[in-house]
């Protein structure tokens, strides 16, 4: 693989929270699955993987078959196995919950099956999937995140020439740059990208939409265009004092922790305020709490019951030492000599300064797509409008992932990609 990450990086200091099962562990867990009829777990999966089916395959020692079951529904089944919040998806709907038993560890079984299946693919030199002969169609995909990769992968398997354009030097989107390292490390994300490309997908990194290419140009050369643009930069709070040293955007910081060799956290940082209570806020708060000796406090303008981050993630962050301050609205960042000294918050009783040397803004990302001339319709939230086939207002332009849904899970993006790929194929009268 051409993509190189620095050997030394903070990402490596984290412990894998759900490590790869051994064969014995996987078999014990697989045999716990009841093999429900009309299984609720399948219905809770955006990509509708036949979960009881692949678990039975693991139980019966058919690891290649299990991997095939997963990946034919979700091209990013390997990374989803590690990043999906299964507690609120498949495992959350497992009927064993109603029996007061631990639900099946579907994510960990999926990780085992995809790891073993892809390992076998390398060892045996036999691919799990064989692309069909070329059908004479070409699709350009913009952005190389999960949505585009899933779309490109399924197109390639159907014999369509798929070309992915990525403005960054590293492909993979948030899977490579934005997932908490205790869930998924960049090496694994990039390995998955390489696997998808191995089916004939072409990748062009360092090509930016609006600068190097435009949608109109691409529509001249390609039969269809897929927009998997993701979201933009971290939103700022828009309060005084944001230009001081020690103010960060959450996704910027997450990427820095994952990739940069030289990125270090100074010893003067003893307190960190993370503003926001979504899953990105929880991730960065937990990463900082585990990585540093600093006290990390999440500051949220509303009460805990309103937070958009998952309860199970918050619980784990709390166990890592993250504190939580609710009903506190940031009003200003205080600094001395250009260095952050505190976060001024308005609380119901008045106002208050949270002493801190860092402020991390985790209040969402900009809707980058709306700022570009894409020739497609947007909604009032700056999201690209796409129908159930992920087709935009332009008949040959499809879109999926965060730029359509405003920022959801990897599995939603992967589902969008497959739906769009199949819709394109159907529009050309081709099988998938």
């Amino acid at each position, binding site marked *: 693989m051409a993509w190189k990450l620095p050997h030394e990086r903070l990402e490596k200091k984290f412990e894998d929270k759900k490590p790869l099962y051994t064969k014995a562990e996987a078999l014990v867990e697989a045999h716990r699955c009841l093999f*429900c009829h009309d299984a609720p777990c399948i219905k809770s999966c955006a990509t509708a993987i036949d979960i009881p089916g692949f678990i039975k395959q693991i139980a019966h020692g058919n690891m290649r078959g299990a991997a095939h079951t997963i990946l034919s529904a979700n091209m990013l089944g390997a990374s989803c196995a590690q990043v999906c919040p299964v507690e609120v998806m498949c495992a959350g709907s497992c009927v064993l919950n109603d029996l007061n038993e631990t639900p099946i560890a579907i994510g960990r079984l999926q990780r085992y099956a995809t790891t073993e299946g892809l390992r076998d693919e390398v060892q045996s030199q036999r691919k799990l999937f064989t692309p069909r002969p070329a059908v004479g169609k070409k699709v350009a995909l913009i952005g190389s995140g999960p949505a585009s990769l899933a779309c490109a992968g399924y197109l390639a398997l159907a014999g369509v020439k798929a070309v992915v354009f990525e403005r960054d030097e590293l492909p993979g989107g948030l899977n490579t740059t934005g997932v908490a390292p205790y869930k998924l490390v960049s090496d694994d994300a990039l390995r998955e990208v390489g696997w998808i490309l191995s089916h004939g997908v072409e990748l062009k990194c360092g090509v930016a939409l609006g600068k190097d290419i435009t949608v109109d140009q691409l529509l001249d050369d390609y039969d269809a265009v897929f927009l998997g643009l993701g979201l933009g930069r971290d939103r700022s709070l828009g309060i005084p004092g944001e230009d001081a040293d020690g103010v960060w955007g959450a996704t910027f910081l997450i990427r820095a922790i994952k990739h940069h060799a030289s990125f270090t956290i100074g010893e003067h940082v003893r307190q960190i305020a993370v503003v926001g209570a979504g899953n990105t806020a929880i991730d960065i708060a937990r990463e900082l709490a585990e990585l540093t000796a600093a006290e990390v406090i999440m500051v949220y303008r509303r009460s805990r019951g309103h937070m958009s981050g998952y309860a199970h993630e918050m619980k784990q962050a709390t166990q890592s030492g993250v504190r939580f301050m609710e009903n506190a609205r940031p009003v200003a960042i205080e600094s001395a000599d250009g260095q952050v000294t505190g976060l001024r918050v308005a609380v119901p009783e008045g106002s208050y300064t949270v002493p801190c040397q860092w402020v991390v803004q985790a209040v969402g990302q900009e809707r980058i797509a709306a700022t570009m001339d894409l020739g497609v319709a947007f909604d009032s939230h700056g999201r690209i409008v796409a129908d159930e086939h992920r087709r935009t207002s332009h008949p040959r332009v499809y879109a999926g992932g965060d730029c359509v849904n405003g920022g959801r899970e990897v599995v939603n993006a992967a589902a969008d990609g497959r739906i769009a790929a199949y819709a394109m194929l159907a529009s050309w009268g081709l099988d998938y």
Partner: protein
Amino acid sequence: MADLSMDMCGIKSPNPFWLASAPPANSGEQVMRAFDAGWGGAVWKTLGEPIVNVSSRFGSIDYQGSRIAGFNNIELITDRPLETNFKEIAEVKKKYPKHAVVVSLMVETKEEWRDIIKRSEDAGADGLELNFGCPHGMCERGMGSSVGQEPSVLERITSWVMEYANVPVLVKLTPNIGDILDPGRAAVRGGADGLSLINTIKSLMGVDLDRMVPMPRVGDASTNGGYCGPAVKPIALHMVAALARDPKVKIPISGIGGISNWRDAAEFMALGATTVQVCTAVMHYGYRIVEDMIDGLSRFLDERGLARANQLVGMAIPNYLEWGQLDLNYRVVADINAETCIGCQLCYVACQDGAHQCIHLGTTPCQAYHGAHDHAQSVRLLEDPVAHDPLHAHKPRVPWVDEDECVGCNLCALVCPVEGCITMREIPHDAGRESWNERVAKSR
């Protein structure tokens, strides 16, 4: 506490739990440790002309993550010198005079039987067990199951033994026959004091699909072995019970086959076993498993108000009937408890695909091919299950039973993972009891 001691045709032991003739009873040192752990008796690993064993010897099948649901072996009788075995038997009897030491024997000629019986008795054996059951290796040499499969040969050799033996003699039977009554009755005719069964079932444990060699593998090949362990228990129970209720048998039985705990032992005893013999469970977990066999059986007997374990022997035999004697008017239907149901719908799919299509899904009336005698002709509209049971409105994944169509087969209750969720409810009737045999007799 109930009296667990047993007298099996004159062989006395402090409890009914014996080690079966097998690797756990291979040497004096082992048998003494077993007695220390609590075993009441041991049937010494079969003595005969010294043999040579192969490597490997054992195989097993795991079931859904559980180890050793079934077990097989291709090991032969003792591979230790006879003198060593007899010396150790004498030592064990000297140190443990109240425990039962039964010596398993397998030789060919009448003279060999006479000789080995004398040496066993001289060593202090409390009883002899004739191995007419081993289904691998030895049977190729005309011994073991090749004797057990020929009732006339079995009878003749038994009568030879009875000529020479001064201690009680058990004949160990092979299950590899058409009807267990044939060798059982032959042993009785030959004069045996008791029976022990089952020996192992002829088996191939599996196939190594990479090498295309059956298991357990010996180099580049394998051979058929003897199958035992938890999976064979129902087969053994039937054979023990068939002999226990046979008016032509009427001699004590030592039950063998998949016994792993006190409950298994109690079931064998209820179906006519005076003592029970255990091998696979000991090979899996060690001698210590006898601790709870003793404790569990004692508590069970106390609960039942039985003062002595031998009162349990045969208690269930009167209730083991022929099919033609069963009550045709008895009827149960499945009852799903919507409160405890977790909605896995295994009962639904089992009933639809594997039974009689009487369990349905959905909160709306459903069309099912019901109503005709053959269950597959006419369409019948079934009523709204929500009207039937308001809980269905809150738990839409709960299947429901069409009681008119339910044949009471038990399958749904058997597959249900939730304890007590599906019960089989008896439907009262005033038709009285009527069996098939009675119905046929009436129609004549």
